[in-house]
């Protein structure tokens, strides 16, 4: 018997039974296949019109900042304004995401955009966002060849471009969207990152300090035009 089998034997001994019957196994597999949500708090069951407001309220409580762009065409100006306001450089590392790439960045020629995974010297990272969760003010970022996860953690400042129509009530909703994107097959990317505010620690005398290892600043540009990205 392998170690794994030994462990399973001890588990069954503790539970006072032998291997599960085929019927029980089928039931358990059905439970997984159904992946039913459990209790959803009332707070998160907000109508779509209120979701964005709840999301922003919860996110602002933990230090996320917001700007609003009427459409994707307005994003470059909003980003430049944020960088100027905080004295941040105009050198950006951006996800090589096709949709993000179709934003008319050249209307702000001052922005110097490099694309790829994060490099140690990068100070500002710009990424798209798969979904947001209003219940807790959380961004849901999903890794891929076009969306390297290092951009969510290495640069000092993380700017996220979020479509208002991608704001959901709950994390369950975000996973439902992910499942729907890959019906019937494996749907989990290498990494799903839930991000709720800038990095922080309370390890020194329980004082909250921002920017422990992840980004010190988290800024979200919400694009209201719920049409498809350019």
């Amino acid at each position, binding site marked *: 018997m392998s*170690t*794994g089998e*030994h*462990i*399973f034997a*001890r588990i*069954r001994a*503790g*539970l006072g039974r032998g291997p*599960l019957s085929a019927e*029980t196994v089928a039931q*358990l*597999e059905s*439970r*997984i296949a159904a*992946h039913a*949500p*459990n*209790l959803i*708090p*009332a707070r998160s069951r907000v109508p779509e019109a209120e979701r964005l407001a709840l999301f922003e309220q919860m996110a602002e409580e*933990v230090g996320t900042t917001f700007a609003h762009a009427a459409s994707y065409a307005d994003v470059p100006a909003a980003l430049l304004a944020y960088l100027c306001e905080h004295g941040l450089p105009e050198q950006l590392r951006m996800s*090589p995401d096709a949709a993000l790439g179709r934003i008319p960045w050249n209307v702000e020629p001052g922005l110097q955009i490099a694309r*790829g*995974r994060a490099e*140690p010297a990068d100070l500002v990272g710009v990424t798209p966002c798969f979904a947001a969760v209003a219940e807790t*003010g*959380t961004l849901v970022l999903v*890794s*891929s*060849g076009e969306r*390297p*996860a*290092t951009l*969510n*953690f290495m640069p000092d400042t993380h700017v996220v471009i979020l479509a208002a129509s991608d704001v959901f009530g*709950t*994390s369950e909703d975000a*996973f439902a969207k992910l499942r729907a994107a890959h019906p019937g097959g494996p749907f*989990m*990317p*290498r*990494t799903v*990152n*839930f*991000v*709720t505010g800038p*990095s*922080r*620690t*309370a*390890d*020194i*005398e*329980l004082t909250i*300090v921002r*920017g*422990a*290892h*992840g980004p010190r600043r988290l800024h979200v540009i919400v694009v209201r035009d719920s049409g498809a990205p350019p």
Partner: protein
Amino acid sequence: MKITSHAFKANAHAAMGNRTLRGALERMETGGFSAARVAAVARLPEFDELRDRAVEIKNHTLAHLDFYLERFEREVLAQGGQVHWCATAREARETILSLCRKADAKTATKGKSMVAEEIALNPFLEQNGIAPIETDLGEYVIQLADQPPSHIIVPAVHLNKEQIADLFLKHHAQYGKTERLTEAQALVGEAREIMRQKYIDADVGITGANFLIAETGTTIIATNEGNGDLTQMLPKMHIVISSIEKVLPTLEDACTLLRLLARSATGQESTVYTTFSTGPKRPGDLDGPDEYHVVLLDNGRSGMLGTELQDALRCIRCGACLNDCPVYRSVGGHAYGWVYPGPIGAAIDPLFIGLEEAADLPGASSFCGKCEEVCPMRIPLPNIMRYWREQAFEREVTPLSQRAGITVWAWFAKRPALYRRAAGIAVAALALLAGRKGRLRRVPFAEGWTAFRDLPAPEGRTFAQQWRAQARKRAS
């Protein structure tokens, strides 16, 4: 770490005389997680229902643990990862070492993991020429101080800013840092700067897991710093070390338990980062580890099933029980002498390190029940502690004097007439000793009581004597 649980009383005594520690404990009590937890729970009306649901999910999973672990393994393999089953701490250490050797690792960055502490991974890696680098700020600080963690969530909470500043000054000189910093912000900034290159240079990143998902072969970590993420995404090998009871059936089940975790631990609505990792990097990914290994550790968990300890397998390591425990608040985490302090430590340490070593841990409880009240997973902690006391009594781990004392007292309690007479004598004697003062400063055989408080004097006759006298009067 060196086990000192057998010296709990001496540890506790030292702790209560340690001014720095007591200052830290006071900081926790007044400005810490307990009040924040209460506020967070008040903000979520469904919290208690969510606890019930989480208990159901976890009990269901434990009742079918073999199925869910097998499914988890299958999914990890399907995603290109590997699973390593380890029955004991020794096997887990050796597995991780051999993986590090396979990666030709000189350094391994580490996220916070109580299981890694449990198997004493760090000293073992060091002995074998691999430098483990703690990345969680609290763990980094205690690594510099060469101390064990004193709390599950904030491992360095027993140290103050001055001590941390001294540690940084001493250990960061090698990086050209010569200024002694005084502000928390600056200290964090210096640690961030120094750690950054270590993340990049590491060959292996080791993280724990808050949960494992059977449905997708996913491991989940919940952190506030982002250190666990940098640990797993930058090196070429990611090793997850997890005990077997962490598995849950689906992502939706994890969403439910995640609603309880941060609120119970720190009063946050959510930790800053919750990361779901599934396998190594995918074709086309620009970053991520080339190899993904999940080391699954039993180390006694399977033996807890079907026993009075089974409920403790529901623990999600939130630390709420520590924060609200009057004993922990008096003596801090190190007094408990091993990896898990507080009420959960009292419940499970005797299993891991033996009752002879750890008997004082379930002993040192007033059974106030606050731990069970705040536990998001409704673990009956006082009951489990009482179970250990029963074991200690039966196996004669409890000192003879204590067992004899209870046996003698019980002998009287089972004989009402004798008890009444003995009680009457004792009461009269104590009342006489106290005179009109109404209290006693010193009572023979009761130094434990009178060292810290007076003993109020009995009224002079027992209730039983007076009730009988009144009944006679009524009858006559």
